C-alpha cells in the first residue's frame, strides 16, 4: 500500500451558492457538527506524517470557516502545498491578504458561466460580479489563478465565451469539468446531461483554444464519462493516492463515497494512519482483488481500476460491480438509456433543476 499524496479537506458543506450540479451529499445536515480548529490541526499533522503533500481546502465554501487563515497557516507550516477551492464569495481584499501571508499557494475560483445573468441563475444567487472582482484580487496579490467551470447541458454551448473570459481575467489555468453525477448533480442528472451534438461542438472549441493559448493558459478538459467507452480511472484507484476528510471528520477515499454502505471511520475516533491502512472504508476496493468480471480479466484493470465505485453503487445498487459507464459492463444499458434520453429528438422541456440548499438544518435545530 502506498502513501497518499493529497488530502481533500472539506471544511464545511455550508455554501452561499445553490448550484444544482453540486456533488455535496443530499444529507448535508449529518455533517453540521464540524471539526474544530484544533481538530483540523491534528488531522493536517497526521496527514503530513502519512505522506500527504497537497492539501485542497474545499467544501461547500471554505471561506465560511472563520478559522480558514489558521488552517492554511497550519498546513503551510507543515510544508503542504495548499490549494483553496472557492466560489470567491467572501474573498475580500483583507481576507485575501491574510491568506497570502499565511502561505496559501494556489486559488481556484468557480464561475458558472461567462456572463452575469446565466452565471447567477445557475449559482442561485447574485455572485458573478463579485467573483470577477475577487479574481482580480487573486491576480494582484501574485497568486496563480485557476478558473473552474462545471459544464452541463445549460452552459456547455457557451464554452468559447467561458474560455474568452478566463483569458480576460488572466487565468493561468482553466478547468472545464463536465458534471460528475454525485449528490445534487445525481438528483438533477436528466436536466444536466448534455447531448452528443453539444459535446462535439464543445470539444472542437476546446481543441482550438488549447492550440491558440498554449503558451499562456493551461486548458484542462474533463470528459463526461457517460459518453466515453471506458470508465474514468477514478481517484487513481480506490484509496491509492488521495483521501478526503468531511466537515464532521469522516475519512473517505473520495467525497462521493459517503453514499456507500460501508462502516464510518472518523478522525474523532481513530488516528488517520490507522484508518488509511486498515479501515474497511479504505480497504474495501483497494487494489484489484475485489473485482468481478469483466474487470478481473481485463487488460485495463490497472488503468481504470474498474471505474467509479460510487457510480456503480448509484446505478446498480452494488458498489462491487463494474462501472456501468464501461461498454463492457453487463449494466451498460443503464447509462445508454440516460444518454439516449439526453439525445431524444422528441425531448420536451428539460426537467426543472433542484437547487442544493445553502445549508440543511438538522431536525430540531
Amino acid at each position, binding site marked *: 500500500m502506498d502513501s497518499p499524496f493529497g488530502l481533500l479537506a472539506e471544511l464545511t458543506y455550508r455554501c452561499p451558492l445553490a448550484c444544482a450540479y453540486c456533488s455535496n451529499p443530499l444529507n448535508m445536515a449529518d455533517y453540521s457538527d464540524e471539526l474544530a480548529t484544533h481538530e483540523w490541526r491534528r488531522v493536517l499533522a497526521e496527514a503530513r506524517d502519512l*505522506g500527504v503533500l497537497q492539501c485542497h481546502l474545499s467544501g461547500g465554501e471554505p471561506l465560511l470557516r472563520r478559522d480558514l487563515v489558521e488552517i492554511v497557516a497550519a498546513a503551510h507550516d507543515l510544508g503542504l*502545498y495548499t490549494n483553496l477551492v472557492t466560489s470567491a464569495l467572501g474573498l475580500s481584499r483583507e481576507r485575501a491578504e491574510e491568506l497570502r501571508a499565511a502561505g496559501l*499557494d494556489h486559488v481556484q475560483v468557480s464561475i458558472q458561466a461567462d456572463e452575469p445573468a446565466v452565471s447567477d441563475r445557475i449559482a442561485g444567487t447574485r455572485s458573478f460580479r463579485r467573483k470577477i472582482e475577487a479574481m482580480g484580487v487573486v491576480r494582484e496579490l501574485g497568486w*496563480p489563478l485557476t478558473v473552474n467551470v462545471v459544464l452541463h447541458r445549460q452552459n456547455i454551448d457557451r464554452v468559447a465565451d467561458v474560455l474568452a473570459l478566463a483569458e480576460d481575467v488572466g487565468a*493561468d489555468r482553466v*478547468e472545464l469539468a463536465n458534471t460528475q453525477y454525485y449528490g445534487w448533480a445525481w438528483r438533477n442528472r436528466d436536466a444536466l446531461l448534455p447531448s452528443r451534438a453539444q459535446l462535439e461542438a464543445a470539444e472542437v472549441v476546446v481543441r482550438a483554444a488549447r492550440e491558440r493559448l*498554449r503558451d499562456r493558459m493551461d486548458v484542462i478538459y474533463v470528459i463526461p464519462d457517460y459518453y466515453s467507452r471506458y470508465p474514468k480511472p477514478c481517484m487513481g484507484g480506490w484509496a491509492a493516492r488521495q483521501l478526503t476528510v468531511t466537515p464532521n471528520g469522516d475519512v473517505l477515499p473520495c467525497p462521493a463515497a459517503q453514499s456507500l454502505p460501508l462502516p464510518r471511520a472518523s478522525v474523532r475516533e481513530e488516528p488517520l494512519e490507522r484508518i488509511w491502512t486498515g479501515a474497511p472504508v479504505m480497504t474495501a476496493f483497494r487494489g484489484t482483488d475485489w473485482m468481478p468480471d469483466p474487470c478481473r480479466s481485463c487488460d485495463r484493470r490497472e488503468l481504470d481500476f474498474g471505474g467509479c465505485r460510487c457510480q456503480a453503487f448509484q446505478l446498480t445498487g452494488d458498489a462491487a460491480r463494474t462501472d456501468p459507464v464501461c461498454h463492457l459492463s453487463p449494466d451498460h444499458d443503464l447509462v445508454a438509456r440516460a444518454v439516449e434520453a439526453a439525445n431524444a429528438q422528441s425531448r420536451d422541456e428539460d426537467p426543472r433543476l433542484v437547487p442544493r440548499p445553502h445549508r440543511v438544518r438538522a431536525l430540531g435545530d
Partner: protein
Amino acid sequence: MTAVDPAPTRPPAVTGSDRPRLARHVRLAFDPTRQRHVLLHPETVVVLHGSGADILGLCDGRRTVAEIVDELGARYQVVPDDEVRRFLTRLAARRCVELVPADG
C-alpha cells in the same frame, strides 16, 4: 476530481539555448516520508529520481540548458545533454517548467 485529458497539446522539444525555470504555481520540495524531492503542482505531485532535483535546482530562467549541463558535470555528476533535454521537455509538457525565450 478526476482530470482526464485525452489530447494535451505537445510543446516543442527543449533545446540547449532555452532558459528553463519552474512555473509560477510549482514548488520544489523535499518529502521526508518518501525521502525524495518532489515537484508540487495544484493537481499533481511529481516524485523526482536521480539527478532530477539537481537539474531543477539550476533552472532559474537565466541559465541556458547547455549551461545547466556543464554546471551539473562540474558540481554533481555528468548527465548526458539529451537526457536533461528530454527530462525538461517532459516537465514542460506537464506545465511544471516554463521556457524563457533564447533571446529573453
